[in-house]
């Protein structure tokens, strides 16, 4: 296993540009989310965080630049292919599957291999069923969703839905995890649990990148911080020093 913090072993963005019309929402961003570390991306509204996030996750294609996962160029891959390579994401607007139970929601994340469609049509179990089951159970326990496992997802409150989305991503055993405001709508106990889980994941060798508005949470969790404003990274480095930087406070000031 690669040592924690090794550059390039996690997710790397090089010169990513994404334009809408004539405006560059993301304008040449370099970013490194190494394995075993929690990296945070902060910045005022409209700074281009979400657009960058979409480019990294595969929901959007960058107009220029590269996205590398463990050294492999994934810039042209669609999002589901990235997910199968171990790059998982959560959404700012919760993306739960209303028609499935909590456990089934998590299971969807656990069982995305290409093969087995023919077997499925014949009613035979898909390959790798036991692994998927085990991963589902583990993710449910980790996020304290065991008690509601058979509930339809549409009966869960917001906070639990956020954890459900995270559980779905965890069930896929991610190498890199992209989290879009994971603490929004969580109560204190849930936020604490989230922090513990994210720390544990990093310790196990996952690379985490989170977009977060809650600077307190960032200060407590993140190893490194990138600050974006107007499509560019204006500051980067270890959390404490970046958050103390007066330029950051200036860019942040309004929000």
């Amino acid at each position: 296993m690669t040592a924690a913090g090794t550059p390039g072993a996690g997710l790397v963005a090089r010169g990513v540009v994404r334009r809408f019309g004539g405006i560059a929402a993301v304008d040449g961003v370099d970013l490194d989310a190494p394995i075993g570390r929690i990296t945070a991306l902060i910045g005022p509204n409209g700074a281009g965080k979400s657009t960058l996030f979409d480019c990294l996750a595969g929901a959007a294609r960058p107009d220029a630049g590269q996205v590398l996962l463990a050294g492999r160029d994934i810039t042209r891959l669609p999002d589901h292919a990235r997910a199968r390579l171990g790059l998982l994401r959560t959404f700012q607007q919760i993306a739960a599957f209303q028609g499935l139970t909590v456990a089934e929601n998590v299971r969807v994340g656990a069982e995305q291999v290409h093969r087995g469609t023919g077997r499925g049509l014949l009613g035979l179990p898909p390959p790798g069923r036991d692994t998927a089951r085990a991963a589902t159970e583990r993710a449910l326990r980790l996020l304290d969703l065991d008690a509601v496992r058979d509930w339809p997802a549409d009966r869960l409150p917001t906070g639990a839905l956020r954890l459900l989305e995270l559980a779905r991503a965890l069930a896929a055993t991610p190498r890199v995890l992209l989290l879009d405001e994971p603490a929004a709508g969580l109560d204190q106990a849930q936020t604490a649990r989230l922090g513990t889980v994210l720390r544990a994941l990093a310790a196990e060798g996952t690379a985490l990148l989170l977009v977060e508005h809650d600077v307190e949470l960032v200060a407590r969790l993140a190893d490194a911080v990138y600050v974006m404003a107007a499509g560019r990274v204006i500051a980067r480095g270890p959390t404490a020093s970046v958050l103390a930087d007066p330029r950051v406070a200036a860019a942040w000031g309004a929000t």
Partner: protein
Amino acid sequence: MGAAGLTLDLALAGLAVGSAAALSGVGLVVTYRATGVLNLAQGAQAMATAYLLRELVVVHHWPLALAAVCCLLVAAPALGVLLDLAVFRPLQRRGAGPAETMVAGIGVFVLLIGAAVLIWGTAPYGDAPPLVEGTALAQPGGHVLRLDTAVQLATVLVLATTVGLVSRYTRFGVRLRAVVDNRALAQLAGVDADRISSAGWAFGSFTAGLVGVLLAPFLLLDPYGLPLLVMETMAVAVAARLRSLPVAVVTGLALGVAQSELTRLRPAGQLLPLAQAVQTNLFVVALLVAALLPWSGGSDDTGLALPGGGRGGRGATAARTACTVLVLLPLGFHADDLRHALLVPALALVLLSVVVVTGYGGQVSLGQAGYAGLGALGTALLMSGKVPGLPALPAVPALLLAVAVTVPLGLLTGWPAIRRRGLALALVTFAVGTALSRLVFDQPYATTGLTVSRDGMPTGDRGFYTVELVLLGVGLLVVRNLHRGRLGRALTAMRDHQAGASAAGVDVPRLKLLVFMAGAGLAALGGGLMALGGQAFDPTAFDPVQGLLWFATVVVAGADSAAGAVLAAALLVGLDAGTAAGVSAVVVGALATVLGRMPGGLAGLARRAADRATVPARPGPGQEAALTPLGRRLRERIAERAP
């Protein structure tokens, strides 16, 4: 007469249909701009008005002018306002999505057609009165300009110009544009959005009526032909991207003229029948092209994730038992009743194809009748030995081979579905179904000299019905496997949240192709059985209007309920055989228009009733025994704060 003279004559002749199409386009665009709804029922409104005018003039001997005023200026706008008040405004109030609105529109369409069949029957009338006599108006250089054509053309231009001027220069127009931009905001600013949308519906319905009355004299008036023709002219509105009136007018006129000019093309040899098919159906081709061109409209719509569609659930066992009993019953029927019942398993398979594509996959598909027709035609062609290189096959191999060939053709609608959702996808699938019907099933080159028999299978009705049941069982097994396990979870994920499913690693494009191919196969199997049951290939059975009825039926029954589809098939066949023709369409249409108040359809109703009956057994918020850890913590905290 020289070539140039002929060109001019054909152009003048084409203007008649062209101006009607342009008028239809103007109506659709105006309704869409005022209400945000693409009026899918327009064709049926046109048909209803044309029937009404004929009834008043031919049967009751009213003077034409009085009857026309009554139909066009009173009845048609009143129908529009009624639709707004009774169907579309409640949906808008509830914040219903485009999918529900679309289903309601199809419901109105089916309802009006059913009502027409009930009142006037399906026999075509050839005596629809023309509004304006077709006397020659002027003959510059020997070219005849008919009075009716001139009046139509003038009407279109005047209406389009008036609408354009009103929306640009009057207070009403400003309000209209405000409502279109942002309804809620416009209401806050004191605009009466309801009045605007009522006016939009009244105008749209008036133009629909005018289109119907103008077109009816050119063709035989029957409940299916005219509505479909008007729906084909949606090509004009789609080409105008539902925005531009000038584009709609120009496209309508140009298509009319082009269709007329094309009659001069006579390619030699094998191309001739195909060319003729295109010539008479240029609007179908145009609709297909316009819907397939990249279009932002509807692409960011949600899919058809109709609310209330949980998987499994209570009441399912009861529905399954009812299904089993119902499909086994006909085995004990008398010969006559059994012959009617032969249609049930076949129709059930076609409806199941809609369940798979729309209910499980969340993809709107209005073209399943086309695949059913392909299955029927394929079976017939293979049995008649019309396929080069193959001998005439017995029934079963022919049916299975036809299904196998139709499965990959599911890509015809599956491929466009990858990038389209909602309305845009609905239009493409409808266009594909219509194109198949008009360019293949209706054409002599494909359908002459076909013989369909039950050669090689039980020839008696009872034996054949048993075979049908076996095949229905196989179909149900495939459907069940699509709803369970890994495939079922992935499909439901795609239906409920496409981006989320994709991010979780679900290969959404591949899955869409899979559901459309599975749907095509099921529909083809059902269609083939229909042909074998009737021992003939009947192109009218696979009319696109039938496809709309089938789609509405499945959504009403509860889009993701396989048992519901089988029950619905039995009900459709039973209603039409046991009562008058058209009753089933009226029932389905009426239910579809109130679907907004009945989420999940009839299956949803049944599920909720079953849930209520067994409430204590089901965990839910607010019950002590089943609080989540979060709930328990919340309760503790509330208890702490309480004085």
